[in-house]
């Protein structure tokens, strides 16, 4: 059993304590509510547990899954039961997963998340109401399936968006089924209970929005302003993080606690740097100077070769990638900050300090600063010389006066 710990400070502990209690209250309320709902439409909609069992998983697998998810969400072990109970009783929530300007790395990441149930339960079998990449239907059938879901579950479904939306040329850079991404997004968002922006494209614009942004790509929160959007940035985001966000909503019926940038705090409250196993080298001032030097071999901190860990909020250091095998820094490459806004334009990736646009190619603040300070130094020197020339009469007079006074000093 893998144990993931997010609790690193007293503040976090208090914080978790509060959420846990909130969840329990929320749970009691939901349980009664769900029990009533279950009676009315039990036959129509399967619960998550029913669906999992039908697929041949054992109850034990299901409990493992619930434990994983609770751990990823940073919950205490006492809440595992609550998670399991909710998944047992909650009818599954349909998901519409939209693909706009994207590379599908988010979907790829999601279906490779740690536990097979994650993809099975959430995506493949249960809620595959609409996702262009994975659904069996295509063409008009696919669109029809989406519209059926949107009508039937109006106000209930989860809308997941992968990819940015281009605004340039009336949105014609991204068209699906003859309509622009803007149209699709607005239509799907209208009846969504929750909107999740998967990955950096939907959250921040990512590479499409990088300079010069020819298609005028924007993240979805620039278009949908009247609904809360959970941003799950990363290129791609970690599969377990994605699963955690969905399971949280499924389990508790509420969005996970979000930070000021609407990212789930459980996964984005800490920087890579804060959970990096190379952090002791940073504090000790031991840095790799280049990727092939002795210090790099010793596994020293990659700060000086451009690691963005100190500026990047994500869970790579704790959850890691590929079933917890590794993450970039562990593999000897600095973090490129893929879950941060505008990370493509804050390059170069292998320099500590971003280059300044408008000051020549890859001029850093230091180069500009040094040049300006030097020019200023020359300037004040020139001014000092000029001042002595221009004010020579005054100086001569004041020196003469001072000298005269010096001669008159009484020595007694």
């Amino acid at each position, binding site marked *: 059993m893998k144990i993931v710990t997010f609790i690193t*400070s*007293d*503040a976090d502990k208090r914080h978790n304590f509060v959420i846990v209690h909130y969840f329990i209250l929320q749970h009691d309320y939901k349980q009664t509510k769900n029990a009533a709902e279950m009676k009315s439409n039990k036959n129509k909609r399967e619960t998550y547990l029913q669906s999992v069992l039908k697929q041949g998983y054992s109850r034990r697998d299901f409990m493992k899954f619930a434990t994983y998810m609770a751990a990823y969400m940073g919950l205490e072990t006492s809440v595992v039961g609550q998670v399991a109970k909710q998944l047992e009783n909650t009818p599954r929530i349909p998901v519409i997963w939209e693909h706009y300007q994207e590379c599908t790395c988010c979907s790829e990441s999601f279906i490779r998340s740690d536990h097979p149930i994650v993809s099975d339960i959430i995506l493949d079998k249960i809620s595959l109401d609409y996702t262009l990449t994975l659904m069996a239907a295509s063409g008009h059938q696919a669109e029809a399936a989406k519209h059926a879901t949107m009508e039937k579950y109006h106000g209930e479904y989860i809308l997941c968006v992968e990819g940015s939306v281009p605004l340039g040329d009336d949105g014609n850079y991204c068209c699906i089924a003859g309509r622009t991404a803007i149209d699709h997004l607005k239509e799907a968002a209208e009846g969504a209970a929750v909107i999740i922006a998967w990955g950096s494209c939907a959250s*921040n614009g990512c590479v499409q929005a990088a300079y010069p942004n020819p298609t005028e790509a924007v993240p979805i929160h620039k278009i949908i302003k009247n609904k809360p959007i959970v941003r799950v940035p990363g290129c791609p985001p970690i599969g377990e993080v994605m699963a955690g966000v969905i399971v949280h909503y499924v389990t508790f019926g509420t969005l996970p606690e979000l930070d*000021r*940038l609407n990212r789930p705090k459980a996964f984005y*409250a*800490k*920087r890579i740097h*804060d959970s990096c196993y190379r952090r*002791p080298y*940073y*504090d*000790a*001032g*031991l*840095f790799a100077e280049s990727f092939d030097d*002795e*210090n790099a071999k010793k596994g020293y901190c990659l*700060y*000086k070769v451009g690691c*963005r860990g*100190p*500026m*990047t*909020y994500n869970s790579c250091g704790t959850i890691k990638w590929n079933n917890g095998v590794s993450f970039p820094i562990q593999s000897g490459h600095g973090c490129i*900050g893929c879950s*941060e*806004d*505008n*990370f493509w334009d*804050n390059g170069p990736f292998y320099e*500590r*300090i*971003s280059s*300044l646009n408008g000051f020549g190619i890859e001029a850093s*603040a*230091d180069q*500009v*600063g040094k040049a*300006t*300070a030097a020019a*200023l*130094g020359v300037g*004040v020197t020139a*001014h*000092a010389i*000029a*001042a002595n020339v*221009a*004010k020579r*009469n*005054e*100086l001569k*007079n*004041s020196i*003469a*006066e*001072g000298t*005269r006074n010096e001669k008159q000093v009484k020595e007694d």
Partner: protein
Amino acid sequence: MATAKKDLTFKRVYVWELPVRIFHWANALCITVLAATGFVIANPPAIMSSTEASGQFWFGTVRYIHFATAYIFLGVMLLRIYWAFVGNRYASWRSFLPLTRKALQNIRHVLQIDILLGVDKEHRLGNIAIGHNAVAGASYVVLFFLALVQVATGFGLYEPMSAFFVADLFGWVIPLFGSDFTVRLIHHGVTWLMILFVIIHVYLVFYHDWLEGRGEVSSMFSGYKFVLTDRIKPEDTLEGEAPPAQEEAPWTEEEKTPAAEAH
């Protein structure tokens, strides 16, 4: 030489009160320490070491000094803001903002005479500032805003590491700019602007000290500046808010050339 004609006598005037001087030097020290540690943090020196990471913590210490100094920097800044409302006329917030006609006139004078090195033909007493001149005052307003930017961006970057309420007050900074990258770049760039300020500031202090000989440099230690006796009202007129100081130069036509006070 015609210089013997005028006896230029000066009086000591208490310009910079003790809190102002303490602020000045604390601030100067903070900026120096913050810039030095900041550059080390931005680009740490290459060190090869046979000691394990567990045995050393120098980079952590440098960062600690940077953060601790930042709190002091913020603290003295708040004290100075307070003193701008209770201090003497040279410490007052009014002395920084070129809002009056007189201040605008003084800006013109300083630009013409001190920056463009023109010849002062008027020799008006009032043109020679006793505290800081109007251009200097405005430059401190600029410095103040640079310092505010540094405090906001610095504490914004620091906030995720801290549970202290002062740091938490700056939680809005990073969301405002979208990411740490931009905030860090601003923090780094403004450091350079402050360095440029320091170069100009120190040069002009030396400039005034050298050309005016009124103790410009030492005034920030002693608090006193030397002011022409003519500019100071005789004691018998001193009561409450007296009429404004005499502005016309006391020189007669033939006396104009030599004035040592004419900087």
